[in-house]
C-alpha cells in the first residue's frame, strides 16, 4: 500500500537483485577456491567441492530469503561480503585439514556456519526494531559482565593453552567473551546516549584539553578495571584490548571530546605496561614483540616467538602473488586454522590476496559506518558505529598481531578462524547491523496527514 506513495521519492533502492548476484559470485569464488585446493594437492577436483559449495550456497540463500522478507531495505552488500570471508575461511580450514593438520576440521566449521546463519535469521526474526535493545541497556551490561567473568567460576571455567576464557559443558566448550562483547556494546550505546551530555559538557578546560569532572570518570575507570582484570586473571589480552578500545571509541563518538581518547589511551597503556612488569605472561608478549628473531625467544617452549616467526616466514614465502592455494606449507604454522589463519591465507594468496581480503573487511566496516551515518536517531548511530568498530578493531588487533605490528594477542579473525563461539557471535553482530541498515535505509515515515488536504492558514 505504501508502494505508490514511495515510488516518486528518490530513496536508496533495495538492490535485492545486486545482492543476489553478489552472493552468487561469492559462493562461486569459494567453490573455485575448493577446486583450486584439490587440483593442486591431489590433481583432481575434490569430491567435497559440491557438498561444501552447495552447503554454503544453501545456507546463504536461506539467510538471503530471511533478509529479503524481514529486512527488505537492508544494505545489499553486507551479506555477500560476509559470505565470501566465511567461505574463504572454510577453504583454508579444509586445506589445512587436507594437509593432516591436527585440530583443523572443516566439517565442524561448516556446521558452525550453519548455526551462525540460523542465529542470524533468528535475530532478524525476533528483533523487529533494534531500538527495543535500548530498554535492555543495563540488562545487557549485566549479562556482558557475567559472561566475561564466567570462565573464572571454579568448575565451570576451563583453561586451554594458558588462557582461562572457556566455559565447558561436558566436552563442548564456548568462549563467553565473544558474546559478551556484543552485550557490552549494546550497554555502552544505551548508557552513553543517556549520559553523554554530562560527559561532553561538564568539566574544566586546561590548556587544549577539556578535562572531565572527577565523578564522570567513574564508568571509564570501571571499564578500565574490568579490562585490566580480564587481562590479568584470564590472561586474555585480546578481549581486554577489544573491550576497552570499543568503550573509548564509543565515548569519543558520543561526546566528540579528544580528552576521553587521551585519557583512555594513557590508562590502557599504563595498565598494560604495569601488567607487563608484574605478570610474566603479559611481559613475554612484549619481549617477543620487540625481538621475535632472537634465539632465546624462538626456542622457548611457552610464550616464545616460534609461532609468530613461522607466520612471518609463511607471509614471506607467499610474497606478492602467493604460492597458490594448496601449494604452500601453512600447516607448519602452529594454530594456522584459528589465530594464524591470516598468515596461512597470506602464504597461499600472497599480498595481492591479503589486500583483497582486507578490502572486503574494510567494505563490511564501511557499510556499518554508513548505516551509522544514515541512522536517524543517536542510539542507532552509536550502536551501529560501535558494532562496526569492534569488527574493524578485531581485524586490526589480530592482523597487527600476526604481522608483529603490535604485541600478539589471541583473537580470532572474524568469520575466518575456526572456532564456534566467535563465528556465532559475529553472525549475530552482522544480523544487528543488517537490522539497523534496514531501518536507516527505509524511506522516512509518511506524514500523518495528506498534504493536499491540509491548508496552511495564517494566524
Amino acid at each position, binding site marked *: 500500500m505504501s508502494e505508490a506513495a514511495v515510488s516518486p*521519492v*528518490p530513496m536508496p*533502492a533495495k538492490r535485492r537483485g545486486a545482492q543476489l548476484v553478489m552472493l552468487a559470485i561469492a559462493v562461486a*569464488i569459494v567453490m573455485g577456491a575448493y577446486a583450486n585446493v584439490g587440483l593442486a594437492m591431489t590433481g583432481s577436483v575434490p569430491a567435497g567441492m559440491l557438498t561444501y559449495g552447495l552447503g554454503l550456497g544453501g545456507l546463504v540463500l536461506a539467510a538471503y530469503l530471511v533478509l529479503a522478507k524481514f529486512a527488505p531495505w537492508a544494505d545489499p552488500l553486507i551479506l555477500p561480503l560476509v559470505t565470501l570471508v566465511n567461505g574463504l575461511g572454510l577453504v583454508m580450514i579444509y586445506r589445512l585439514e587436507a594437509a593432516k593438520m591436527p585440530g583443523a576440521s572443516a566439517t565442524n566449521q561448516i556446521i558452525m556456519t550453519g548455526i551462525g546463519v540460523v542465529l542470524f535469521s533468528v535475530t532478524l526474526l525476533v528483533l523487529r526494531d533494534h531500538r527495543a535493545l535500548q530498554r535492555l541497556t543495563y540488562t545487557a551490561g549485566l549479562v556482558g559482565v557475567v559472561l566475561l567473568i564466567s570462565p573464572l567460576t571454579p568448575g565451570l571455567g576451563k583453561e586451554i593453552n594458558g588462557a582461562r576464557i572457556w566455559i565447558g559443558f561436558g566436552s563442548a566448550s564456548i568462549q563467553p567473551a565473544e558474546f559478551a562483547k556484543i552485550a557490552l556494546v549494546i550497554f555502552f550505546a544505551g548508557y552513553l546516549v543517556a549520559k553523554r551530555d554530562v560527559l561532553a559538557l561538564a568539566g574544566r578546560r586546561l590548556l587544549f584539553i577539556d578535562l572531565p569532572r572527577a565523578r564522570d570518570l567513574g564508568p571509564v575507570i570501571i571499564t578500565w578495571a574490568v579490562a585490566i582484570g580480564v587481562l590479568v586473571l584470564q590472561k586474555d589480552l585480546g578481549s581486554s584490548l577489544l573491550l576497552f578500545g570499543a568503550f573509548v571509541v564509543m565515548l569519543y563518538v558520543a561526546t566528540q571530546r579528544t580528552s576521553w581518547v587521551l585519557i583512555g589511551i594513557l590508562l590502557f597503556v599504563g595498565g598494560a605496561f604495569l601488567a607487563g612488569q608484574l605478570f610474566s605472561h603479559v611481559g613475554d608478549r612484549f619481549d617477543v614483540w620487540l625481538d621475535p628473531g632472537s634465539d632465546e625467544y624462538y626456542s622457548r617452549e611457552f610464550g616464545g616467538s616460534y609461532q609468530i616467526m613461522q607466520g612471518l616466514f609463511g607471509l614471506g614465502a607467499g610474497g606478492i602473488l*602467493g604460492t597458490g592455494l594448496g601449494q604452500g606449507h601453512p600447516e607448519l604454522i602452529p594454530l594456522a586454522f584459528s589465530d594464524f589463519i591470516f598468515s596461512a591465507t597470506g602464504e597461499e*594468496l600472497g599480498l595481492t590476496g591479503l589486500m583483497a581480503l582486507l578490502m572486503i573487511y574494510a*567494505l563490511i566496516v564501511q557499510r556499518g559506518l554508513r548505516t551509522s551515518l544514515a541512522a*536517524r*536517531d543517536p542510539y542507532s548511530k552509536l550502536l551501529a558505529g560501535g558494532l562496526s568498530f569492534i569488527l574493524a578493531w578485531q581485524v586490526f588487533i589480530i592482523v597487527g598481531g600476526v604481522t608483529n605490528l603490535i604485541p600478539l594477542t589471541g583473537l580470532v579473525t572474524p568469520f575466518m578462524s575456526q572456532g564456534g563461539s566467535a563465528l556465532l557471535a559475529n553472525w549475530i553482530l552482522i544480523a544487528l547491523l543488517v537490522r539497523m541498515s534496514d531501518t536507516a535505509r527505509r524511506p*522516512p515515515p509518511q506524514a500523518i496527514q495528506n498534504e493536499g488536504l491540509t491548508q496552511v492558514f495564517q494566524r
Partner: protein
Amino acid sequence: MSELTLLLIRLAFLAVLWFFVVAAVGVIRTDLFGSRTAPAGPRKGGKPAKPVVKPKSKKGEPRQLIVTGGPLQGTTINLTETPITIGRANDATLVVTDDYASSRHARLFPQDGQWIVEDLGSTNGTYLDRSKVTRPTPVPLGVPIRVGKTVIELRK
C-alpha cells in the same frame, strides 16, 4: 597438474577476488558520488516518475537538509516530496534526544518549490535564524533553524 596450469589458476583466482571487491564498490557507487546517481538504481520504476519531478527542480531549490549543530551534527537527509518531522518521537524523520525538544516539535514541508517550516506547538519553540516561528514560514537556503540544541539548514 602442470605448473603452468596452476600458475594460471592462481592468477585467475586473485583476479576474480579483486573483481569481487571492485563489483562491491560498484554496488555502493551511489554512496560515493552522492544522491544524483541514486535514481539510477530502480531502473524501471524510477524512470517514469522522474520527469515529473525534474522540471520543478529549479536552480535555487534545496536538495539536502544538513544538521549543523547539536548532537546529530553531520547528519544529512535528502529532501524529497515527503514532509520532514523533527522531534523526540521515534517516528519523526529526524529523531532528536534533547531535553529542550518536544516529541513532535516542528515540521518542514515543500510547497510551490519552497520549503516551509511549521512549529507543531512545541514547548520551547522553533527558531528560524533569530526569530521565533509562530506561523508556517518559508525557509531560505542556508538559514539556520533551531530546535532545542539542534541546528539544521537547507542546502543545495
